[in-house]
């Protein structure tokens, strides 16, 4: 028989992770986060456009890298956030994990799409074509499909509590499968086209490029954190409105 016991240790984590508490302390975090993000972007863009040299081979198009690499990193980091949240949903059934999962999925899709977009913009001058069946690009495209599938699954459910746990299962399966997909795509690429395309990890990266790259990565990561936090707050508010409406409907039903 199902033997369930409620969490019997209201430690500090349980307290700050309670949706009500979360709404309380996170309110004071939004503005500072926005401010730091704006500053980081200001510094990063200054370095990317003005204080770094153009590549001797690729010219100014190298500056596309300062958007491409951070978004590519975030496309994977978002999945890691969803993976951790999925475990929180399945193991502890924590409502904040549900909310975090749901908030991260569209962000992941957006950053992945951005990485693909900048990648193909960059590909035009370097490879001579917008789309190259390059291993990296192809795996990123499949990752985008997985994100979009997960978003579609979220939307297919009415009951968001059930949706969170079902999506968590899919997220875990995806996490196991993504390395396999990556491996298979790399295998496929070496089979069909010997390494002739430009590779990111080829030449050593000079310091003048590294500084703007790191600052922009930081800026984009901060952007993700800010958006994730705001989306989580929005989702909690949405759920509260829904439960208030439900209570209202029930009260009206009882009066009739």
């Amino acid at each position, binding site marked *: 028989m199902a033997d369930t016991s409620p969490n019997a240790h209201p430690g500090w984590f349980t307290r700050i992770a309670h949706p009500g508490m979360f709404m309380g302390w996170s309110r004071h975090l939004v503005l500072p986060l926005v401010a730091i993000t704006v500053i980081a972007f200001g510094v990063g863009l200054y370095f990317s456009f003005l204080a770094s040299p153009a590549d001797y081979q690729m010219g100014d198009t190298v500056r596309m890298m300062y958007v491409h690499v951070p978004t590519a990193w975030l496309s994977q980091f978002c999945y890691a956030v969803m993976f951790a949240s999925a475990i929180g949903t*399945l193991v502890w059934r924590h409502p904040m994990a549900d909310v975090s999962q749901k908030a991260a999925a569209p962000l992941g899709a957006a950053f992945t799409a951005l990485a693909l977009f900048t990648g193909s913009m960059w590909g035009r001058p370097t490879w001579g074509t917008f789309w190259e069946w390059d291993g990296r690009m192809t795996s990123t495209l*499949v990752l985008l*499909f*997985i994100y*979009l*599938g*997960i978003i*579609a*699954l979220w939307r*297919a*459910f009415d009951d968001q509590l*059930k949706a969170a*746990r*079902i999506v968590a*299962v*899919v997220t*875990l*399966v*995806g996490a*196991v*499968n993504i390395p*396999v*997909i990556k*491996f*298979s*795509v790399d*295998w*496929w690429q070496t*089979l069909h086209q010997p390494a002739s395309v430009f590779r990111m990890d080829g030449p050593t990266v000079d310091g003048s490029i590294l500084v703007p790259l790191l600052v922009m990565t930081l800026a984009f990561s901060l952007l993700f954190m800010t958006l994730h936090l705001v989306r989580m707050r929005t989702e909690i508010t949405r759920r509260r409105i829904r439960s208030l409406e439900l209570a209202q409907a029930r009260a009206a039903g009882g009066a009739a």
Partner: protein
Amino acid sequence: MRAFTAIIGRDLRLGLRQGGDLLTLVLFFVIVGVLLPFAVGPDRPLLAQLAPAIIWVAALLAQLLSHDRLFRSDFEDGSLALFRHASLSLDGIVFAKLIAHWLLTGLPLVVAMPVLALVLGLTADNFWLAVLTLLAGTPALTAFGAIGAAVTVGLKRGGLVAPVLVLPLSLPVLIFGTGAFDPTRVEASTQALLLLCALSLVSMALAPFAAALALKISGE
């Protein structure tokens, strides 16, 4: 063990008695395979070259269509709830259902292969290679499909979500399946065949746990 064989026996019996589904599946597989040459043109050397792609895309689509019924009838008539009280765990029951499902939807594709081989102009060697890759790869398709079917079993309008979820996950099967099918690169195709077998074994072993978990959640 008795429960395990009973489930395989029941699903096979139901699948074979409602033989219409089985026939439709095989028909769909053959029609997709025959339709693609019309899109490509009657160029025999080109078709022979595209044969692995055509066969695998047809197999992928045919399998995709058959997944929805894997758990749906058991979910709707209450059998899935009773499975929870069986002497066998739900993971084991799902595994038994996967085996039966593969016998009903994977194996018939292999049996239908001669027809496609004929129209696509496969040589005898390539025909056997095609049979071998389908045998090695379709269990993995069944396993991924089962996860898709399990997560959407509670949805009334989940028909399109499952394929959208399953297709990206099935990409490695497609890659290794067609990769194994290349007689000009013996080394690579042997490697792909082994990878395909590994993929099928691992996914068949792990998918029941994920699917059973999703079914438990869907049943609530």
